């Protein structure tokens, strides 16, 4: 066949291929990141991963480090699982997923001990508990096992951000009302204490975290009635 004939024949096929490949940040892909922030928030809507939301939110700094750790673990384990999804034998599916998650969490733990030692002491047990965080296993099973790598990565980032948004919101109120500080910096001015203002000690307990999360769920569902009977 002559060159001109092959190029004419292959042009429509090439064009079709270009149309089928989706842009990296297409609208659907962007929604993978933004949906879990509100409509499909892992904590307030899917009601997953609430345990650690209680434990690490007494102050903003550990909540922030926990958020970054979870985003890292979630995005990468989603990515790795998605890359391997067609090779994993179904009989060891859960074990392989768990190993991926556990390895990434171990890497995060080692990293924290080397570069943020004081925070790693504060978060000691909870970093290990990311392995058992329902959000991670949940997304792996529900999304990464059935979707392509890039989409899975974005889904991991989105859910991590949604989780983090709630963590930081809860920590904001707990540290502000419970200790008068934000990120360790005194925010409530001394004159308030002088006129009789007292830090709310209950905010330092886990029960307070439950209340704050409950209020956040309430606000979210009032603004979006479609979510009322979701879970």
């Amino acid at each position: 066949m002559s060159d001109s004939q092959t190029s004419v024949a292959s042009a429509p096929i090439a064009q079709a291929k270009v149309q089928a490949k989706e842009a990296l940040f297409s609208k659907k892909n962007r929604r993978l990141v933004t949906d879990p922030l509100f409509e499909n928030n892992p904590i307030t809507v899917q009601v997953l991963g609430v345990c650690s939301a209680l434990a690490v939110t007494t102050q903003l700094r550990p909540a922030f480090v926990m958020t970054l750790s979870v985003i890292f673990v979630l995005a990468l384990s989603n990515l790795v699982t998605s890359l391997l999804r067609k090779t994993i034998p179904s009989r060891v599916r859960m074990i392989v997923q768990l190993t991926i998650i556990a390895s990434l969490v171990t890497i995060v733990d080692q990293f924290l001990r080397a570069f943020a030692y004081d925070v790693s002491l504060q978060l000691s047990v909870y970093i290990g508990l990311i392995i058992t965080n329902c959000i991670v296993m949940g997304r792996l099973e529900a999304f990464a096992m059935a979707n392509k790598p890039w989409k899975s990565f974005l889904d991991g980032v989105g859910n991590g951000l949604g989780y983090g948004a709630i963590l930081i919101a809860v920590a904001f109120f707990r540290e502000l009302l419970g200790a008068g500080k934000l990120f360790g910096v005194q925010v409530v001015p001394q004159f308030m204490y002088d006129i009789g203002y007292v830090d709310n000690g209950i905010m330092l307990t886990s029960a307070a975290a439950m209340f704050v999360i409950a209020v956040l769920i309430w606000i979210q569902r009032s603004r979006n009635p479609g979510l009322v009977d979701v879970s």
Partner: protein
Amino acid sequence: MSKVETNSYTFGYAMVFTATIAVILALVATVMKPMQEQNREHAKRVSILSTVTGVDGADKGEIQVMFDEKIEQIVIDAEGNILEGVNAFDLDVAKEYKKDAPDRHLPLYLFEDVSGEKTYVIPLRGSGLWGWISVFLALEDDGSTIKATVFEHETETPGLGAEIKDAPWFREQFVGKKFFNAAGEYVSIDVLKGRGNSLTEHTVDGVSGSTITSRGVAAMLQRLQGYEQYFNSLKS
């Protein structure tokens, strides 16, 4: 059955997957180790210094300088003799306690403030519920009265066993307690069950709901007896 579902594939996959993960994790741990070691040593210096002087706001370099200048390191044997050529800071206290009592080398740190007043900082180690626990005790030069304590633990339960470190009331109640009674006998300091007990010079309250950790603290404090010979020799 597709290729992915056969027994041999499953088996082989598991082997290769596990081996790869093992190599990656080993690499990460090896690369991170030096930095982690530095962090641990820095934390140890801060713990020791904080029992005798203020450490707020000092950076790592300043802490190192403070430690080297102000703290004298001493290693003793079971009879209270000072051993030369051994560094107290590098001594692995956990390993020493695995040896028989007569073979142990024990570290202690001496701090002398501007007025010449001496404080002995003694590291002790024991077992909590889930892992190790440890304490740095700052003692007055009678070798008996506590001036300050800093507790550490490996993985005690937050809110329960971990309170030995996190709750100021726990460590502050040790201030002024004595290991030796008026007759000079070693009686140690006991940790009673729960809070609200009536206390003496030789007892403190435990953490409510964490019996095993509290017992671990009491057992750990018993180990101060290893320094009894040394302190007696100082008095004579």
